[in-house]
C-alpha cells in the first residue's frame, strides 16, 4: 500500500477561524415554529375538509391557503424529518414535469379506487396524488369539478387533507422528539458530529431554497424568451405562484439573518428582491408570456441570483464552508 507523503510546496491559506452561528437559536426560532405552524394549520385544513368538502367553500379555501402558506415557509428545510419516508414529497410533489398528479387523480376518480377510504391505505398512493398540489387540482381545476362522482371526490379530498396533516404531524413529532436535540447538540452525536456539520446543513437549506425559488418557481414559467411557459407557474390555479416566491424569500431571509449574524447587506438584498416581487403585481406570473412582463420577472430572478451570490461568496467562506472549484460544481 502506498503511504501518503505530503510534498507540500505552498501552504493553502485557510480562514483563521470561522463564525459559528447560534444553532439552537435557529432550531428554536426558525425551524420549530415553522413546523408547529404547519402541523397546526394542516390539522385545521383536515378539520375544514371534514366539515365541508365542497370545493369553493370559503372555510375550506381559507384553510387551504393558510396551510399551504405554512408549507412554503418551511419548504427550504429539506433535511432530516421532512425527508424520512418521503414526507416532504408527499406534501409537495412539484414540479410535476410528467403530469403525474392529474393523471393519478383522474385514475383514482375514474376507478373509484377504494384506497381513499382510509388514510392508512392512502399512504400507498403515489406521492404525486397526495399533498398540496394534488389538493389544489381537486379544489381549483375545472377538470376536477365536472366529475359526477361528488361523493367519491369528497372522500378523496377529506382523506388527502388527513394525509397532509399526518405528514406534517410526523415531521413535527420527529423534530420535537429528538431531531432538534441532535442539531442543538451537534458535536455529541453521530448525525451531526460537529457544530460545523449542523451549520453546513442549514447553509445548504438556505442556498438550495434560494436556488429552487429562482430556478424553478420562476424559471419554469419563464421558460425561454421564445417559448415562455405561463401554464407551468406553481399553484397558479389557486393564484399562489408569486405569493410562493415572496413567502420563500421571507423564510430564507429569516434563516440568512440568523446564519449571518444579522448581515445588513445580505438583508438588504432580500429586501430588494421582496420589493420587486411585490411590485410585480402578477399573482400567477402570467405576464411572462409578454416580452415586457418576462423582463420584469427576469429582473426579479436576477435579484435572487444576487442574493445567492452573496450567500455563496461571502456567507459561505465566513462560516468556513469550502467553496471549491469542484466541490461546488456538483456534476
Amino acid at each position, binding site marked *: *500500500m*502506498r*503511504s*501518503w*507523503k*505530503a*510534498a*507540500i*510546496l*505552498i501552504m*493553502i491559506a485557510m480562514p483563521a477561524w470561522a463564525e459559528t452561528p447560534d444553532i439552537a437559536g435557529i432550531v428554536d426560532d426558525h425551524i420549530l415554529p415553522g413546523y408547529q405552524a404547519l402541523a397546526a394549520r394542516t390539522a385545521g385544513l383536515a378539520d375544514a375538509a371534514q366539515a365541508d368538502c365542497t370545493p369553493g367553500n370559503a372555510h375550506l379555501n381559507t384553510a387551504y391557503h393558510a396551510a399551504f402558506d405554512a408549507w412554503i415557509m418551511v419548504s427550504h428545510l*429539506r*433535511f*432530516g424529518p421532512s*425527508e*424520512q419516508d*418521503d414526507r416532504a*414529497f408527499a406534501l409537495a*410533489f412539484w*414540479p410535476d*414535469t*410528467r403530469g*403525474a398528479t392529474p393523471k393519478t387523480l383522474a385514475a383514482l376518480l375514474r376507478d373509484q379506487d377504494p384506497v381513499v377510504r382510509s388514510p392508512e391505505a392512502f399512504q400507498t398512493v403515489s*406521492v*404525486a396524488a397526495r399533498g398540496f398540489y394534488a389538493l389544489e387540482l381537486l379544489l381549483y381545476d375545472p377538470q376536477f369539478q365536472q366529475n359526477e362522482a361528488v361523493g367519491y371526490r369528497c372522500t378523496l379530498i377529506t382523506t388527502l387533507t388527513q394525509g397532509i396533516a399526518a405528514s406534517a404531524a410526523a415531521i413535527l413529532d420527529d423534530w420535537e422528539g429528538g431531531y432538534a436535540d441532535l442539531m442543538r447538540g451537534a458535536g455529541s452525536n453521530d*448525525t451531526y*458530529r460537529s457544530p460545523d456539520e449542523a451549520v453546513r*446543513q442549514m447553509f445548504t437549506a438556505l442556498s438550495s431554497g434560494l*436556488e*429552487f425559488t429562482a*430556478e*424553478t418557481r420562476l*424559471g*419554469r414559467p*419563464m*421558460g*425561454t424568451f421564445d417559448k415562455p*411557459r405561463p401554464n407551468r407557474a406553481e399553484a397558479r390555479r389557486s393564484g399562489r405562484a408569486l405569493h410562493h416566491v415572496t413567502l420563500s424569500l421571507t423564510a430564507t431571509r429569516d434563516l440568512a439573518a440568523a446564519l449571518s449574524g444579522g448581515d445588513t447587506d445580505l438583508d438588504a438584498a432580500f429586501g430588494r428582491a421582496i420589493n420587486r416581487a411585490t411590485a410585480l403585481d402578477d399573482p400567477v406570473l402570467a405576464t411572462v408570456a409578454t416580452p415586457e412582463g418576462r423582463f420584469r420577472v427576469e429582473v426579479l430572478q436576477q435579484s435572487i441570483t444576487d442574493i445567492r451570490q452573496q450567500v455563496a461568496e461571502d456567507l459561505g467562506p465566513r462560516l468556513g464552508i*469550502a467553496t*471549491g*472549484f*469542484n*466541490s461546488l*460544481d*456538483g*456534476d
Partner: protein
Amino acid sequence: MADRRSFLAGLLATGLCPTRGWADLGNPAYLAAARLPSGKYALFGLSNDGAPLFQIPLPNRGHASAAHPYHAVAVAFARRPGTFALVINCTSGTVIARLTAPGGHHFSGHGTFSADGGLLFTAENDFENARGMVGVWRTGDYARLTAFSSGGIGPHDLKLMPDGRRMVVANGGIETHPDTGRTKLNLPTMRPNLTYLSLDGVVADQIEPPVEWHKNSIRHLAVHGDGRVAIACQWQGDLSDVPPLLATHDGGAALAFRASGHGYERRMQGYAGSIAVSRNSRIAVTGPRGGLALIFDRSGQFQDTITEQDICGVAPAADDLAFTTGLGRVLFPIATTWVTREHDLQWDNHLIAIAG
C-alpha cells in the same frame, strides 16, 4: 436495422484521418481541463508526472474530455448542460470540428471513442422528452450519424467496454431541463440504471439499484480490463442516510454496493465526483466535498484514503492512480509514495488517461 448496422460497421473500417499521433506531443499521459488565473479556460496535456506538455484555450468551463485512441485528437466537452464540444487537434492546437448538440438535446459532458477511433459517442439529454440519448458521430468529418436511446433518464458518463463492441452508460435517473438550469425535477420518482448497449444502440443489459437506494444517482463509470464496471454514485436523498458511493457490477443480476466501513462516505456528503480503475484493478472514488478520495482493491474491499482539498480528477497511471484537485495539484505515484506537483490552475472535475 440491419442496414444501419452494416452502415456503421462499414464506417468503423474507414478511420481515415491525417492527424499525427500522441507520440509527437511527447506522449502525454492525461488530458485535463482547467481554469487559468486569468479566469479563462484551457485543455491541458499532462505527462506522467503531471507536467504540462501542451495547452489549448477553451471558450468556457470544460467538464470531461475524450482522447482519440491513436491520433492526437481530443474532444473537450462543455460543462453540463452544454450544447457544444470541440474536437481539437492537439498537435496544432486547432479546432478540427465543433460538435453542436441537435435541437432539444444537451451534452452531459462525457463521451467516448470507438476502439478503432472511427466513431465518437456522446451522452445527451433529450430534455423535452426527458429521455437519455447517445449521439453517434463519424470521426472522419465529425458528422452526426444517428442517435439512440441510452436506456434511461439523465445519462451522464459513458464508457466503451474492453471488447470494443458494447458501451456502458450511467443513466443517472435525474431529469433536468434548460429552463430550470441544473434543478433536479424528479427526485421522488427517479430511477437510475446502468445500461449496456451495443454500438448501434441495442440494449444488452440493464441494472437498477435496489428500490431503497433509488435516489443514489449512477453518475460516473470506470471499466476494468476484464469488463467489470465500477460506478461512482451521488446520493440525492437526506444526508443523514449515508449510502455507499461505490458500486461494482460484474455482469450479474445486481449491483454490489461497497462501503468503506469507516464512515468516510459521511465526509463525502453523499457526493462522489469521479472514479477510475488502475491497471492493477485498484478503484479510486474522489469526494471533492469531503476533500478525500477512497481507494478500494479489485474485490471492492476498502484500502486507503487520500486527503486533499477539492480532489476530483482521477485516472489510471502507468503504475496505480493519478489525481487532480481544484487547487491546482496533480498527485502522481512514484515508488511507494504520492508526489504532488502544483500548478497555478484549478483542475476541472475529470482527469482523462490517454490510451497507449
